[in-house]
Structure formats: structure tokens, C-alpha cells
């Protein structure tokens, strides 16, 4: 009988691709943000408003992860931003190798920020390092204030939480104070930006966060 003590990282193949992505992003001086949120949390709409607010679309690159269709990529493309649709088929997340392949054919020479819009899901995308600089959780008010407690890993791993659809608050039982307290329980250090793409509230704060995060890289 041969017993071998291995201690192998199960994700090592993914993590090796993530390191390659990190090296490429460093070489091109591109900030990579991994946006993680449920289906319908408003990730794509937030990106559309971001590009409208920031202008100069050549500075941005988007990878759109979806199980099927290229609807989101078409919407982003209309903003004048380079976009790649990553269709994952049956898979509920994007892994580092899919990201690596998505860089093919793009020079990134004018790119400052890469946004990866992950597949709508609060569980699996949190597990996969794709070589990003920061994970960002996007949660809409309609999903409920208890979500940080139900999905602690994604909130713990995030550098920022963006709450969307705050214009809906008058119609929902979403308690903003309870939400803030729940986020603080699972990650006492993470900032929250509260936004509405309908009214435009908070979008400037989000844009400022991106600009500050990008300037921290230089």
C-alpha cells in the first residue's frame, strides 16, 4: 500500500491561469474588476451608465459572462466599448482559462480598466480567482437585505459592495440599516456604494471609486 500525503490545491490549474492573467494585466497596466451579482441585479445597466458617465470608451474593455446569448455584449457594444462575450454553456461561473482565451485578438494598448461581468450567481464565481485586482459584489435592493448572511464568501472576498436599484426602496421591505449591518458582519472593512441607475444617484461615487482604484495601481 502506498499512501501519499500530497496537499495539492484543488484549484491549482485555474490558479496557474489566473497568474498568467495577472502578469498580462500588469504588463499592460490594466485594472481588472470582477463584478459578481445575481441575474437581474443590474450589472449590465450599471456598466452602461458607467461608460456614459466616464466617456472615452477606448479606455475600457468588457468581458461578458453568460450561460447563453450575447444580449449583454450587444448592449455594451452600443456604448462603443470593446466587448467579448464569454458563453459558458452549462457552467455557472467564469474560470481563469476562459478569461485568458478572451484576451486573444485584443491589444489592450489603450485599455485602463477591464470589467468582467461574471455569470449571474453569488456562489460559484466567488470560488474562482480569474486574476482580477478586485472582486465587487453587485446586489439589488429587490433581492433582500439578508443576502450578505446567505452568501458570506462573495461579500468577504469583495473590495466593494455596490447596492443597486435604491429608487425601489419605497416599494420594498428592504431595510437599508439592516443591510449595512449584515454586510459589516461578514466583512467589517468593505465599503458600500448605494446607487440607482434610474435616478443617477450614487453613480458618480462608483465612477470615483473606479478612478481612485485605477490610480492606486500606478
Amino acid at each position, binding site marked *: *500500500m*502506498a499512501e501519499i500525503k500530497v496537499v495539492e490545491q484543488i484549484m491549482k490549474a485555474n490558479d496557474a491561469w489566473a497568474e498568467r492573467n495577472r502578469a498580462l494585466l500588469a504588463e499592460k497596466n490594466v485594472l481588472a474588476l470582477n463584478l459578481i451579482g445575481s441575474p437581474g441585479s443590474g450589472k449590465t445597466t450599471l456598466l452602461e451608465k458607467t461608460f456614459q458617465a466616464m466617456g472615452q470608451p477606448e479606455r475600457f474593455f468588457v468581458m461578458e459572462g453568460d450561460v447563453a446569448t450575447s444580449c449583454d455584449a450587444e448592449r455594451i457594444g452600443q456604448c462603443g466599448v470593446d466587448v467579448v462575450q464569454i458563453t459558458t454553456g452549462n457552467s455557472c461561473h467564469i474560470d481563469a482559462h476562459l478569461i485568458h482565451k478572451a484576451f486573444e485578438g485584443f491589444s489592450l494598448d489603450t485599455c485602463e480598466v477591464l470589467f468582467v461581468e461574471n455569470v449571474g450567481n453569488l456562489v460559484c464565481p466567488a470560488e474562482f480567482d480569474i486574476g482580477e485586482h478586485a472582486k465587487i459584489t453587485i446586489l439589488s435592493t429587490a433581492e433582500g437585505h439578508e443576502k450578505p448572511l446567505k*452568501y458570506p464568501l462573495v461579500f468577504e472576498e469583495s473590495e466593494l459592495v455596490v447596492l443597486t436599484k435604491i429608487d425601489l426602496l419605497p416599494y420594498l421591505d428592504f431595510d437599508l440599516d439592516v443591510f449595512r449591518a449584515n454586510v459589516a458582519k461578514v466583512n467589517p472593512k468593505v465599503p458600500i456604494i448605494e446607487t440607482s441607475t434610474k435616478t443617477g444617484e450614487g453613480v458618480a461615487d462608483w465612477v470615483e471609486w473606479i478612478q481612485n482604484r485605477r490610480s492606486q495601481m500606478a
Partner: protein
Amino acid sequence: MHEFSIAQAIAEIIEEKSKEYPGKNLTRIHLRIGRYRAIVKDSLEFGLGVVLENTPAASAAIEIDFVPIAVSCASCGAEEDLEEPFLICPKCGGLDVTVIRGKELEIDLLEFS
């Protein structure tokens, strides 16, 4: 759903390691998985059953240790396991804590015979 991706990643490592033990079958797999990972034991075992079917590892016993989430506290220096994933020091209530365990996704041991 991520259990299946994780099962596939485990199967790839088993295949690679099996080359070092020609003519032997994998009889035991021991995994260490952090509580943060939200891995459902039954789903992972099912996924491993699917990916290892018709391989020399098909009849291996699968053992999983779940590792509690633990933090170290910058205020009082305690290193403590947490009952729930709330980042607060169980000793002093401090919030300046660092996660030190609970995100493991490791193969700890493979037994060939």
C-alpha cells in the same frame, strides 16, 4: 453547481498523480474543504462519482474534512474558530480580524494500493 467543477479539478490531479503509481488503484481520497466554500458534501461526492466512473479511482473511499472558519485578531492576538461567518473576534469583539482558515480546497492524501 461548483461542486462539479471542483470534482473535475480533483479528477485531473488524481490522473496526474496516478502516473507515479503504475499498476495500482486509488483506494482513498482525503479532502480538506473550508466552510467558506459552501460545498455540499452530497453534491461533491456525486460529482466525483461521475468523473471517476470507469477510471482506476472509481472505487476509492472519499473522506472530507470540513475546516471551520477561523480568524486571528489584531487587537487581542486570539486565534479562534467562528461558529458563523461573522468577522468579529469571539474573545474581545474586535473587528480588525484576518481570516486564517476556512477557505481550504485541498487534497490532503491519496492512497494507492
